[in-house]
Structure formats: structure tokens, C-alpha cells
């Protein structure tokens, strides 16, 4: 009995093995044969995109495939996941050759050595300067920009025929319109939304970090001091008056504006799709302080992986195919963000709303891409929210505590 077991299993194993053994090598060799026969198998590019940009990148990729015979594999990821996944996967050699991304990831990407520089050459001049500047670190360009996004004041022209000059004008016009809210600005509950509130803060002369002459930031906080305190005091007052509320989330703000419950909302081009039925205008954000209200500019672009085995293809694809007006326009149509390429941006600016956002963006400041920014966000928003909601009795004290906490976190 014993022997028969061993015999039987040995037999079965051998049989199975021969099956595998004969199947496997031939499979390999046929794959090799395919590879040498088909030029397309010479190289293949993997590109990470998020859902909104997928269609546009696919179109450009098809054009590239047709011309160069290279396979382009588009992998759709959640935009929020890309940053961490790219950081985690590139060192393992997995990861994509190219990924979409935001310019403020740059500091972290270079510190981890996961991105390779892109030489735009003379093409750099074809882009809106701030977009290339945002992807530049230490004299090297690390991304191909395709879109610039910033917030502005979106106005329902039926409820408010004229653009407000100052913040007080806006509140007055809003009250005169007799709508439920004089104006809308979103907050993420008690986590606040310092990004959307930033133009108000800059109008008091309290930017987040000190800026170098070339526009890059250095990790020295600038949001404290007298100017910062003035902004904090103003936030407290407006919260008390009910003009600002942390309970208005993005959803609520969009819904209320779409229903005509307010003549103004501060927001970005991504909102416009929800307002299709309204007559709109896009204006500069009215300043409550005595300086211009400058929102953050975010630039989106494509990064090339430092571990890409197809660096040549990746650069070729980006520099020679994704920087064309057609590709940039397609991306604009897919994502609604004004293009970074001047020619495409000019074309897109025929739409007065896009032109409005672009005009505000021209005077805006790039969001800091230094890694230290990460430590700022979480303190910043919560403090603003607690001042607006009145949870912090003394705005100035709360603001100063925030500044020292951030300094503690920066170490």
C-alpha cells in the first residue's frame, strides 16, 4: 500500500511536470518571437492618470502609439492615492514611467529621488511662466505642466450685476440681493479650509512662508506677526457676524449657489459644471485687507519616474506629444482647468469664465512645494475654524499658539 502511494503520487507529479515543463519553455520562446517581430513590444509606457484626465491622455497616447508604434498603458488611479503610491512603488522598480501630479508634491518627490528632471529646452518658453516655475527646483525642471488652477470669485450676474470692489462691497451686495447667504465660502467643518481662505489672509500681508527673489519659498514662517494677528481678528469678527461659517462644506456651498441662494461663491473652475444653468461672471476675489487678495496657484503636470526603464520614450512622449496645443486643449476640455501652454490657454480664454480665472491666476502665488508645507496645513485650518466658530475666545492668542505649534512641528 505504502509503495503504491508513493508510486502513484510520483507518477502524477511527473506527468504534471512534463506537462508544465513542455508547456512553459515553448510559451517563453513564442513570447520572445513576438517581441522581436512586433516593434510595438520594444517599448511600452505605463502612465498613471486620474479619472478626469484619463480620456484626454488616452487620446494623446493613441496618437503617440500610432506614430511611434509604442504601447502606452494608461492606468487609472485615484488622484489622492497617486502621491503616496508613487513614492512607495518607484523605489521597488514597479511604479509607472509617467504619472500626473500636482506641483506641490515636488519637494517630497525630489527628497526621495523618485522623479527625474525633464529637459524642456526651448519649449519652456511656450508655457505660462508660473507653471514652469512651479515645477522648477534648484534650477532643474521636474514636470511637464498642463494645467493651472486657482480660485476666484464666481458671481451670479442675475443676483449681482456688478463685480464688488472690496470685501465690504461684496457683503453689502450680497445682503442687498436678499438671498439666504450674502456670499459663500467653503470650510471642511472644524478642520477648516486654509486653501480657500488664503486670499483673505494674503490681503492682510501674511503669506505662509517667506519667498525668495525667484519666487521659491524658504521654510521660514511668515504668517505670524502683526499682519497675521490682524487677519485672525478679522476672522473672529466675521465669524461672529455670521458672514463666515465652518458648517458650509463644499457640497453645501455648491448646492446653495446652484439654487440661487447666494450671488457669490469663492471657488474654482471645478465648480462650474454644477452651475450650468446660471449666468456667471468670474471676478478677482475682493480683499478685506489693504493688499491684493492673492489665492494659491496650483499647477498640474506630468512627472517622469527616476526608475523608469523607458526614460527615452517617457520624455519623448511628454516633451513632443503632451506639450502640443491639441493635447493641452484636450486635457483642458477633460478637466476644466485652464491649460499651462500659452497657445492652448489663449484658445481656452475665449470662454470669459476661463479668462476670468486665468486673470486672477496671473496675480496669484504658487502653492509652496517645500516639504515643510505638510506640517502647516493641519494646524492652520483647525485654528482658522476654531476662530470663526468662536470656539477660540481670543483670536490673536489662538493664532499665535498656532504659529508656535507649527514651529514646534517644523523642529
Amino acid at each position, binding site marked *: 500500500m505504502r509503495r503504491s502511494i508513493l508510486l502513484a503520487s510520483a507518477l502524477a507529479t511527473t506527468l504534471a511536470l512534463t506537462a508544465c515543463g513542455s508547456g512553459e519553455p515553448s510559451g517563453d520562446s513564442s513570447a520572445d518571437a513576438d517581441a522581436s517581430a512586433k516593434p510595438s513590444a520594444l517599448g511600452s509606457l505605463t502612465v498613471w492618470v*486620474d*479619472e*478626469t484626465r484619463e480620456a484626454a491622455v488616452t487620446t494623446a497616447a493613441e496618437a503617440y502609439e500610432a506614430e511611434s508604434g509604442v504601447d502606452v*498603458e494608461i*492606468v*487609472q*488611479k*485615484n*488622484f*489622492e*492615492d497617486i502621491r503616496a*503610491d508613487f513614492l*512607495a*512603488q518607484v523605489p*521597488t*522598480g*514597479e511604479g509607472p514611467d509617467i504619472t500626473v501630479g500636482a506641483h506641490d508634491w515636488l519637494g517630497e518627490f525630489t527628497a526621495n529621488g523618485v522623479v527625474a528632471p525633464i529637459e524642456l529646452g526651448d519649449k519652456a518658453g511656450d508655457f505660462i511662466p508660473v507653471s514652469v516655475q512651479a515645477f522648477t527646483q534648484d534650477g532643474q525642471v521636474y514636470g511637464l505642466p498642463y494645467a493651472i488652477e486657482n480660485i476666484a470669485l464666481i458671481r451670479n450676474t442675475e443676483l449681482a450685476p456688478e463685480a464688488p470692489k472690496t470685501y465690504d462691497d461684496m457683503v453689502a451686495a450680497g445682503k442687498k440681493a436678499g438671498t439666504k447667504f450674502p456670499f459663500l465660502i467653503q470650510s471642511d467643518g472644524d478642520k477648516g479650509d486654509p486653501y480657500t481662505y488664503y486670499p483673505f489672509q494674503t490681503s492682510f500681508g501674511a503669506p505662509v512662508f517667506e519667498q525668495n527673489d525667484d519666487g521659491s519659498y524658504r521654510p521660514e514662517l511668515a504668517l505670524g506677526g502683526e499682519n497675521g494677528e490682524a487677519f485672525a481678528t478679522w476672522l473672529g469678527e466675521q465669524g461672529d457676524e455670521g458672514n463666515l461659517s465652518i458648517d458650509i*462644506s*463644499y*457640497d*453645501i456651498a*455648491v*448646492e*446653495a449657489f*446652484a439654487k440661487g441662494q447666494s450671488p457669490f461663491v469663492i471657488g*474654482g473652475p*471645478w465648480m462650474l459644471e*454644477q452651475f450650468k444653468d446660471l449666468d456667471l461672471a468670474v471676478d478677482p476675489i475682493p480683499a478685506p485687507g489693504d493688499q491684493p487678495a492673492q489665492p494659491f496657484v496650483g499647477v498640474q503636470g506630468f512627472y517622469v519616474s527616476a526608475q523608469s526603464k523607458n526614460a527615452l520614450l517617457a520624455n519623448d512622449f511628454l516633451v513632443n506629444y503632451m506639450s502640443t496645443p491639441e493635447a493641452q486643449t484636450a486635457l483642458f476640455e477633460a478637466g476644466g482647468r485652464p491649460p499651462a501652454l500659452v497657445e492652448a490657454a489663449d484658445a481656452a480664454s475665449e470662454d470669459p469664465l476661463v479668462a476670468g480665472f486665468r486673470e486672477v491666476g496671473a496675480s496669484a502665488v504658487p502653492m509652496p512645494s517645500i516639504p515643510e508645507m505638510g506640517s502647516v496645513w493641519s494646524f492652520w485650518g483647525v485654528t482658522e475654524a476654531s476662530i470663526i466658530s468662536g470656539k477660540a475666545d481670543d483670536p490673536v492668542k489662538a493664532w499665535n499658539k498656532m504659529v508656535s505649534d507649527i514651529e514646534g512641528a517644523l523642529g
Partner: protein
Amino acid sequence: MTTSTDRAGSRRGTAAPGTGQQVLRHRMKPGRWARELGWRHVVGVLAVLYAVFPIVYVVSASLSPTGTLTGSNELFAQVSGVNYAELGDTKFWTWMGNTLVIGVATAVGTVLMGAAAAYAFSRFRFAGRRLGLTSLLIIQMFPQMLAFVAIFLLLISLGEVVPALGLNSKLALICVYLGGALGVNTFLMYGFFNTVPRELDEAAKIDGASHAQVYWTIILRLVTPILAVVALLSFISTFGEFIIARVVLQSESNWTLAVGLYGWVSSLLEANWGLFAAGAVLSAIPVLALFLFLQKYIVGGLTAGSVKG
């Protein structure tokens, strides 16, 4: 000994249930009905309201062509099937198929492996049994927050050897889920196996049945309810899991429902709540269907017992 064998025997022969209940129900007087059953309906209605209310909200959002998920309190202000129709333009149905494949495979594997292990722990006495049981319980408690890093690297190396076990493979994901097949499920079944009288299998063994025979023909039939419960639990947890799934399944056509749906709302600015809500409503249907299907097994033992009692 004979009593319990008899009881189990009569359980197995779930002969003709129902008739006894029917008679009881008709005979009951209103006062007694209220005292014994009526209040249960009150509790039931309250519990269902609690359970269902937030879901009504999702259904309302799924029928609204413009609305956001949290911005509107007017339920069913607008009713349209636009969102459901739009699901056809997405990969929703592919994801649904993937989820069903992965969920069913994981559930079957979990039941088979978990039940076997529970049988061993319940019926055999061996060195390291207690330690094994405790370790099983403990190992599941490792905070999974960082697991994705290790799983990712593991799958990369496995994929270099056997591509089917590497990244972006449904089989690999099923394997990862089966890694958790023991543990909690084993415990659930272990407790249940213990309630099946040991005298039963001993009697069978005296009659000449082998351990495998006892397991497959006696024990497994008696514990059908818990097998159904474990299958359901395993299916549901696979259904809702997206942290590991989105690390493993990279291409969109391989995603599961949870990964895909999460993608629709992960970016709050571009969140597609309408589509998401419609997807969420539809994705709950397989779970409910499975529950309805398994319910008769889950309460099967009860019916048999009550006929006797």
C-alpha cells in the same frame, strides 16, 4: 448519550417544518399575541427604521440628477434614473463581476479552510492546541494600517516567479484574503463545533467511521448554519475591503466595487456623489441576495429544533 444522538438525528432529518407553527399562529388570542409577538413587531419596526434611515438617504441621492450627498435634506425632491443609466458608461458592471468572483471564491475558501481548522481544534487534543488557538486570535489583531507595504513587496517578488500570484491579479488578491481565513472565522466555528455533542462522532467512530467521514458526513451537516454565517461574513468583508484591494489590483478593469466606488468620491472636489450613490445601492443587492439565499440555512437548525421543542 442516546438523547443527544437522537436530537441531532432529528435535526438532520428536517422533515416537515412549518405545519406546527401554522397551527399555533391561528390559535393565538389577541392579548397573548401582543404579549408574545406584537411587541417584537414594534421592536422590529424601530430597529429597521434605525438601520434603514441613512440608506434611504443614499437611495434619494442616487435618484437625484444633480444633488449632492450631504447638501440636501429634501428627500426624493427629484426622481430620475439618470445616475443608474450612467453606470453603464463606466466600468461598474465589470467591477461588479470582479467583486462577485473574488467574494465568492474567498467565501468558499474561507469556509472550507476555517471549518477544517475549527474541526481540528474542536475534536483533537494535540500539543500546541491552546497556543495555536491563541496565536490565531492574536495574529489577526495586527494593525493592518501598514500591511499594504509588506503585501505589495511580497506580491512583487511572488509575481516575478508566478505572474498569476503577483500584482494586478485577482487570484493574488483572493490568496491575500484567504490568509485571513483562519482566525476570527475559526473561532466562530470552533465555538459552534463545540456545541455539537462529541458523543456523536465517538459513536460514529465506534461504528467504524474514519475521521474524514465523521467530518464530511456528520459534523459539516450539523453546523450548516454557522457555515452559512461565515460565508456571508467573509463575502461582506471582502465586498467592502478597499485598502488592500486598491494596492493589489492596479488596472481599472480589475478593480472591485469598493475600490471603484471609493475612487468616485475620494476627491471631494470632483466627487461624483450621484453615480456613487447609485453604485452603492446596486452593490448592496448581491449582499442582500446572498443573505436571503443563506437565511434558510442560517435559521434551518432553528426550525428543526422548534418542531421538536
